[in-house]
């Protein structure tokens, strides 16, 4: 009982904090790989302003540079020009203020579920007791209390991704960066995961940058959809999703949803055709 009280307090504090933090600014960012004749521009001059607490999906075909853009926000990649800012501070390296969720196999396979979630707090210098309490909070949030002592290899793909989300959130980041986190899951599990992600997000209110190539997923989750095109990567459309929250999977049949889907698909189709013609010409 005591522990639970402590937890709710912690969450309230976090929610208050998160309202004022988590603004992501991408200012004239260009990302390229290689140099000279082999220079390959992955992301062309892009500018974005993502207000705190917004759920943004970046939608685009594979290879369009959407992961590259996310990696620059994470701090894994340095832009060739331009700046990435988080709450007005320039991003220069990876850090715990940006929680990262990967597509798959990103849990430390030699650490238990509990140790995986407690990793961030432990690195941050929290005492073992605090780490345990944080880990337990997030274990119960994702409904995997019974799995605390298991190794990641003993969990299903969906459970592993839930642990991945919990691990990223255990640092109370200002922004959650998700790189196709449900891409490797089967369709049913994916739907459940999407709903539970929205539940978690409504509680935390963190800014979310979510990469996907699944149109339905983007519409179902996002406040705002950015459609990216390939060669070189750039944002070709910025759509607001005005569907009411909380959302349930049956909204996929509503008129607004279908309208939005049509819009997204037509953008993507044009781009995919272009990419397809390019690849056949070569």
């Amino acid at each position: 009982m005591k522990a639970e009280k402590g937890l709710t307090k912690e969450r309230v504090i976090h929610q208050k904090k998160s309202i004022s933090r988590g603004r992501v600014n991408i200012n004239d960012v260009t990302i390229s790989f290689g140099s000279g004749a082999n220079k390959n521009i992955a992301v062309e001059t892009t500018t974005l302003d993502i207000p705190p607490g917004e759920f943004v999906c970046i939608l685009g075909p594979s290879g369009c540079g959407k992961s590259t853009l996310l990696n620059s926000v994470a701090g894994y990649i340095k832009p060739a020009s331009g700046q990435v800012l988080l709450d007005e501070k320039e991003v220069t390296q990876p850090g715990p203020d940006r929680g990262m969720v990967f597509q798959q196999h990103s849990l430390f396979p030699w650490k238990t579920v509990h140790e995986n979630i407690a990793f961030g707090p432990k690195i941050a210098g929290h005492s073992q007791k605090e780490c345990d309490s944080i880990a337990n909070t997030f274990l119960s949030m994702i409904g995997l209390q019974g799995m605390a002592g298991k190794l990641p290899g003993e969990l299903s793909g969906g459970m592993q991704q839930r642990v991945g989300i919990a691990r990223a959130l255990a640092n109370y980041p200002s922004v959650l960066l998700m790189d196709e986190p449900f891409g490797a899951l089967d369709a049913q599990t994916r739907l459940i995961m999407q709903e539970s992600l929205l539940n978690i997000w409504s509680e935390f209110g963190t800014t979310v940058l979510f990469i996907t190539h699944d149109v339905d997923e983007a519409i179902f989750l996002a406040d705002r959809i950015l459609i990216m095109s390939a060669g070189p990567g750039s944002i070709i459309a910025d759509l607001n999703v005005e569907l009411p929250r909380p959302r349930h999977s049956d909204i996929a049949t509503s008129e607004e949803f279908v309208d939005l889907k049509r819009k997204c698909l037509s953008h993507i189709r044009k781009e995919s055709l272009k990419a397809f013609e390019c690849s056949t010409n070569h």
Partner: protein
Amino acid sequence: MNVRALEKCTDDRPDEVENILLPEEQNFTVENHDSTKSSTEDTLELKSDGVDHSVGSTKKTLKPPVLEKVFALYKKTDSLFIGVLSISVGLVLWHLATIYSFNFYINFQNIPTPLSVGSAFITQLADTEFYIHILVSLKRILVAYSIAVFLGVGTGLVIGRSRMMRAAVLPYIEIIRPIPAVAWIPLAILMWPTEESSIVYITFLGALFPIILSTVHGVEQTPEVLVRAALSLGAKRSKVFLHVVLPAALPSIASGLAIGMGVSWFSLLAGEVISGQYGIGYFTWNAYSLINYPDIVVGMLVIGALGSLSTFLVRLIMRPSLRWTLPRN
């Protein structure tokens, strides 16, 4: 994964080393015993079914129940039984070859019979000197191997992560690694103050390279996504090393440690045969000099047993830290 790493390591090693690696590969098959057994059982079952049907349809005079019993027995005989049988056949052939003085290119005239080897072994068991030989060898292995583990894993971790260190150290490894332990003996005797230290040095050298190379290999195959995950969770370089790179490299390091143990025995024996007054290698060679042929085979078998046992111990010690690599349901 371990098996692959092992194969890779044995592939780029000279022949002499490969020979000493054989007992380990056998160890592997013993460890994977369960899976191979189940697969052979499957094929046996298939075979017996197939034969059964064809017999039943063509010859009705043969009684199927008897056949079934034979096949049931056949199925029950697991690989252990077949193994014992095979060894017994080998012993009998050896015995026959020696008592009839088989001599056709290979000469069995001076080879001791299995029984004389057995009785020589029992005689040696009652002799304290025999145990001193074993203990001296074990001590040399323990000292040389410990140093090799310490330096090998350390060097491997450093050159696995630092490009500059790798560029500086790798040429030495590439030059020294292919030189067999035996070739080191004259120089080692010149270099080191005592015979004992030169033997330990040669033993150490044998274990060192497999350990370094497996460690480098393990560090290199650390999944990048795990490094990224740790970085985004706030870990700095040293913590990434401790929490991600080291555990990720552990399976490869473990197989390097096992290989290193095998090679260090090989090197030790080379050193002991040529110099020294004690040690199981000296014992074996001395038996030849004294025309005490059964003791040669006793020495050989003891060397083999000690090699297998020590490799097994290395694997046993490493096992708890590799719990996460074991397949699970």
